[in-house]
């Protein structure tokens, strides 16, 4: 197995074509899913007439600010963990130094990056948040009752790229190169699964929030 993974062709594959496939599936799949849902909403008589840009943005912004909505205030721990987790999940891969170096080597472009120490802390926070979510699924009765196997699966899909990236950076557990290969495989896996699993809540968040914000705002009510 080790010899198989250490084979340069595997590294070349995950470093090149796999990443391309992952990004194409992620971007193409996302556009497809959003388009499908928007077209579906157009067919319904009562969705489009209520949609309002101002009310949608009002609702979106309101819910994207921590402790702004009543439910965020009612559950301070969950709120803190949720926001830290999602901020890390989006910011860290985009502004990580190592990722920027790879892009610079390929295309000669790079952008603002996080310091290595901060990245390390953020990775640990994301990993910790994943563990918190798993524990919450096990120990909070209302969450346990609605937990299915696929809930753990999508949590694992989000968890694996970060834990392998973290271990690769510290060169713990497995040889560096193997860990990096695993990291790239899991990262690609996550990108590919986003449009086609419930990780797609990343895409639909903006649509469902906009609908509920417009629907409530239309009645001069608030949805927070």
């Amino acid at each position, binding site marked *: 197995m080790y010899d198989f993974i250490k084979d340069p062709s595997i590294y070349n594959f995950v470093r090149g074509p796999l990443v391309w496939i992952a990004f194409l599936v992620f971007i193409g799949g996302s556009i497809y899913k959003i388009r499908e*849902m928007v077209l*579906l*909403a157009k*067919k*319904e008589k*009562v*969705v489009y007439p209520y949609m309002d840009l101002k009310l949608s943005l009002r*609702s979106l912004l309101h*819910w994207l600010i921590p402790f702004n*909505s*009543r*439910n965020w205030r*009612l*559950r301070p721990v*969950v709120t803190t963990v*949720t926001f830290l987790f999602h901020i890390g999940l989006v910011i860290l891969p985009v502004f990580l130094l190592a990722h920027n170096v790879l892009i610079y080597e390929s295309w000669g472009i790079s952008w603002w990056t996080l310091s290595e120490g901060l990245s390390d802390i953020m990775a640990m926070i994301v990993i910790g948040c994943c563990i918190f979510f798993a524990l919450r699924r096990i120990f*909070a*009765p*209302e*969450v*346990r*009752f*609605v*937990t*299915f196997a696929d*809930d753990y699966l999508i949590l694992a899909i989000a968890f694996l790229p970060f834990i392998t990236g973290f271990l690769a950076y510290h060169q713990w557990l497995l040889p560096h190169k193997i860990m990096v290969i695993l990291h790239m495989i899991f990262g690609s896996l996550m990108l590919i699964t986003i449009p086609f699993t*419930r990780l*797609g*809540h990343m895409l*639909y*968040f903006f*649509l*469902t*929030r906009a*609908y*509920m*914000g417009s*629907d*409530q705002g239309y009645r001069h009510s*608030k*949805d*927070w």
Partner: protein
Amino acid sequence: MAEVSVKEGVETRDWIELKRKPVADIGFDETVKNLTTEKIEKVVNAVLNIGKNAARFMAPLETCIHCALCSTACHWYLSHDKDPTYAPVAKVKMTLWELIKRKGKVSPEFMKQVARIVFCECNLCRRCSMYCPFGLDIAYQLGMVRRICFILGLVPQNILDQTHSLSATLNQLWLTQGDWIDTMQWQEEEVRAEIKNVRIPIDKEGADVMWCPLGTEPKVATYHIARTAKIMNVAGIDWTVSAQDGWDSANMGMFIRDMETMQRVVRGIYDNAMRLKIKRVVLTE
């Protein structure tokens, strides 16, 4: 599904957390005897096929991350010592997700339990949508399950009877047109004991306001009519009530998702408003 004995004091064993004492309701207990798995499967799939073409139905199904943050919104959940089976997402899990998972192939007993959850343990108040980080319309989903139950006839007897009344008479409590006009004239006399020459104008064309009471007001709470008449007269509002059917603003069809009766009730009010050329409809609530 395992057989459940009455001795245990629970109605179901589909989920060990779901503990409910059996409650008798003719609407559930009698209709469930006429159901078969084939009938249920047919109805469930027919309604879910409509759902597949509705974004409001599909988006929550594909978005819900099962975080159970909606639970704190639900007064059923809070008033039952945070029993997880009363959380909004749990109600969706025990009804809609299970029907989808089993493709509608469920026993009549299971369907009775579903009807009890959607009719008797949820008010479709949409408060959970205010607490959901995604703003998912959970009440709409449970409303679809109510629609399935309604088509199967699994509806609490009280509300089903009122819907039957609406579909036959366009009012909630089997009042005839004579009852209605007579009650208004009687109340006019009553108010005249306090305010001289007061009027409850019936079918006045071109009035500013048409008042649509609930069926209960002429039936059992006539003093509401007297009070409304006093308020309207003292405030000097040019008002009227409709003499023809379609004066009742109670819409029980909406609650059980009897869309056909629901739209007839609304149409009745609008038709009267157009007929009398009034500017504004005022409903009791």
